[in-house]
């Protein structure tokens, strides 16, 4: 369960203040897959970093009693000069996982082959995404945070992702950001809408999507 208590988050940059959350209290129940909806720039990614604990709120508390992943879908933490294997090893060490098992898993999953021994800066963006996806699937989290990761790789790789997702979802949950209504409908059983600093929870995905569409027309 992830609980937000009066969480407030603003950014001040060059004199411009941007409010992401104005005093949000909510609760992400265990055992539910939740989609996050909102306009471009509404602060969905920041919201996700708050859930992950990668960023701190201005005030309020965020409590989590599940093992939450980092926001998955970008290799922001990868070092370009390090090889794929070295980057995997780093994450494995950090999370106290068996490094060799994790390298095997990622090698097998990402299908990068000999490129695993090359520095990441030589990778294409697709290769990087495959590596990032493989690494996060190699760690067993109870809640995966997914930030818009629908466009990784070719059709075959996408199928592979769907497969592993399905197995993961038996023991874990996801909280995801996606602009694709189809993806949200397929994977999530409830949704929340981030709009002008307010967060609204909806039990039904359809209801949330309807409201989201209405907001966009304004």
């Amino acid at each position, binding site marked *: 369960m992830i609980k937000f208590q009066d969480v407030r988050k603003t950014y001040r940059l060059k004199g411009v203040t941007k409010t992401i959350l104005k005093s949000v209290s909510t609760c992400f129940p265990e055992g539910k897959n939740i989609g996050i909806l909102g306009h471009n720039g509404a602060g969905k990614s920041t919201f996700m970093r708050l859930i992950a604990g990668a*960023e701190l709120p201005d005030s309020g508390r965020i409590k989590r009693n599940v093992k*939450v992943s980092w926001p998955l879908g970008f290799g922001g933490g*990868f070092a370009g*000069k*390090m090889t794929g294997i*070295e980057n995997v090893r*780093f*994450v494995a060490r*950090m999370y*106290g996982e068996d490094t060799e098992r994790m390298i095997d898993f990622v090698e097998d999953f990402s299908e990068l082959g000999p490129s695993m021994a090359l520095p990441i800066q030589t990778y294409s963006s697709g290769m990087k995404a495959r590596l990032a996806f493989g690494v996060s699937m190699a760690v067993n989290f109870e809640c995966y945070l997914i930030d818009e990761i629908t466009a990784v790789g070719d059709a075959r790789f996408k199928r592979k992702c769907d497969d592993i997702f399905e197995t993961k979802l038996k023991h874990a949950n996801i909280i995801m950001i996606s602009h694709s209504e189809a993806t949200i409908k397929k994977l999530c059983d409830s949704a929340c809408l981030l709009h002008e600093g307010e967060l609204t929870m909806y039990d039904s995905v359809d209801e949330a999507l309807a409201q989201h569409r209405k907001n966009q027309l304004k």
Partner: protein
Amino acid sequence: MDGVITTQVRVIGALVLRETRTAFGDTQLGYLWAIVNPALSTLVLVLIFSSLGRSPAFGTSFALFFATGILPFQTYSKLSNSLMTAINTSRGLLSYPLVNETDILLSKYILIVLTYLMIIILFFWLIIWGDEAPLPVRVEECASAFLVLTLLGLGAGTTNAVLFRLWPTWKQLESIISRPLFFLSAIFYVPDDFPTHVVKVLSWNPVLHGIEWFREGYYGNYHSSVLSKSYLITCVTILLVLGFFGERLYRKKSI
């Protein structure tokens, strides 16, 4: 879930190992360069100065006198400098929830201290082996002086990091302010040789106290009238408190 401390130790360990790869990962010999490079460039400086016939301000070996000054000084300045921008250059890492700013600072600190420890051992081994210098008389005093200087670097570096985050121009100002430190830290002279009013000014510089302490330990018969360990330790404490409290206070402002 395991304890907070074991997790932090694991994370810092992973970061230290990672740093050795990112810094010199694309060159052959990799991290060895971080050790060899400063050691050799100091050696070149020593050779140039000795060939100019410079005599040491204390003792008989110029190499030894210079090394007891420059190496502790470099340790300090490397720390205070690298830590300032460490968080910025490793920003991507903060997307891992397990990693926070303090981990980045501490892992960098550990790596730099270990690196400079190796440099110092390598360099002194070279000059002792080359019969230029005797063994240090009180190793434990040298070690204490080194440790306190690294903590001074940690304090200055984290304080710099906080100032840099609040005010990016600080990086430029800091480099202007800290440049004269090279001349104010007793690297190539003995402060007691100067008139008292000069010594009084110099004694404000905490780095100088660290170097004087190191020399007292190495030489055994080097007596500094300037050295005040309590002043140095006070400076260390103030900077550490400022740095880490400031870091905690302004952490959430990171963008």
